[in-house]
């Protein structure tokens, strides 16, 4: 039996989304090369944990499913193994595009509840404040981004690992390692942010 044709679309499609991705997302200009072969999704070690594999996500971009794309966990579960990048027969920089979409998702407020956003914020805090990643402070800041109780719980769950790292001298005690010209670095980063806010992707 033929299904009745719905009178209006059940989902909202943003028909300008694909073009926006081409023009604003790092690597997005190469998206038009995708021929939907699925080598990326087939190569992905963590595809089972993703809402949609890269192939499907790219089709959704073309279909204009902006909200679904930018709020999908695909952007956050990518482990950056680059298997899809080397296997894509059309040279689409899949990992870079997922990363670029992640940056935009954060910018546009789609990722406020994502663990990755908390982790990335903690990471950037350390990288920009000290010029270096302090693994211990980034981890602690990330754990406590879930609240005091959850932070303590996560800390306790990983206590043995932390002790092992301290015992072997791989987690140092004391002030964070800091670069000499942290001020200079911060000026560079502030300037870069200002340039980026003028628009366009970093690849153009």
């Amino acid at each position, binding site marked *: 039996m033929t299904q009745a044709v719905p009178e209006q679309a059940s989902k909202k499609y943003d028909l300008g989304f694909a073009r926006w991705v081409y023009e604003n997302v*790092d690597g997005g200009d190469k998206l038009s090369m995708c021929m939907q072969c699925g080598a990326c999704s087939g190569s992905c*070690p*963590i595809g089972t*944990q993703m809402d949609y594999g890269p192939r499907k996500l790219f089709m959704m971009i073309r279909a204009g499913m902006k909200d679904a794309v930018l709020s999908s966990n695909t952007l*956050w*579960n*990518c*482990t*950056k*193994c*680059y298997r899809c*990048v*080397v296997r894509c027969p059309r040279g689409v920089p899949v990992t870079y595009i997922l*990363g*670029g979409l*992640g*940056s935009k998702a*954060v910018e546009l407020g789609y990722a406020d509840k994502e*663990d*990755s956003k908390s*982790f*990335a914020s*903690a*990471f*950037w*805090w*350390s*990288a*920009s404040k000290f*010029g*270096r*990643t*302090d*693994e*211990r402070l980034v981890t602690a800041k990330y754990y406590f981004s879930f609240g005091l109780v959850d932070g303590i719980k996560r800390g306790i769950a990983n206590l*043995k690992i932390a002790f*092992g*790292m301290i015992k*072997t*001298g*791989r*987690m*140092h005690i004391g002030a964070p*390692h800091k*670069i*000499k*010209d942290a001020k*200079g*670095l911060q*000026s*560079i*980063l*502030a*300037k*870069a*942010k200002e*340039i*980026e806010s003028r628009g366009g*992707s*970093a690849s153009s």
Partner: protein
Amino acid sequence: MSETENKKFTYYPGCSSQGSARHLDESLRAVAPELGIELEELDDWNCCGASVGHVGGGTLPNLSLTGRNLANASKQGRQDVLTGCAACYLNTHAGNEKIKKDVALRGRVNEALSAADLSYDDDLQVRHACEVIVNDVGLEKIKDRVTNPLTGLKVAGYVGCQTVRPFANTEGGGSYDTYDDPEFLDNFAEACGAEAVDFDVKTACCGGSVSVMNPEKTLHLIKQILDAAKDVGADVIATPCPLCQTNVEMYQEAINKEFGTDFNIPVVFYSQLMAVAFGMDKEKGAALQRNTIRSEKLEGMAKS
């Protein structure tokens, strides 16, 4: 390269060299002169942005981290930049190639760098330590330096991802191996007198930073690597990657708890194997005391 003259590199150790991967940095610095490599540390180096810098800071600020390092490196001379860290290599190499190819992008990066009176106008090469050892040093030189062969040590060479993907076998990446079935790590182990066992998951993924954030999503990935090592009876897993080393080592207990397994397999860096094979001190040279799972067999072979 002549026997007496060392080749100089600007050395970018990366943040993990002061934390979780001190044993990579220490053993690499120890074996480098033996291999004819002189490492001059990059002045005031900063973080490369790792796997999440673009999310935390945005694409251009993240690239500017690399820009600053390259600007400082070019002040130190035109010699190649060398790093032992997979993520540092990936970000710095990729950023460098992008900047070199794209005039407009270089302009944007330099505009940002001008805020600290820096500028990157050079065309440096950013290289991975393993690629340098393959192409500039050669296996013969490793063999020449071995005074304490690791006879009978079964090594599972676990390359991981970013050391070879996506830049192995590319012109800018040094054309030193393939990304599907890289052989350099097995060759290093064999050159040190060890036995490189068949290891079909050599380029499998440990979960990278997702394993740090949400290990529950990726423990099964690490388990695959451990299963394969156990199946072939490996005494140690050897890797070039700081995050692979830490992830595969530190989550073994969590994996045992989750899957009812009994893994306790040491995970070491290739440079630690070299240091032991070159007859160096097991702590000061090979930094074996920094492994949380110790290899009695390897330590038994090491000079103290």
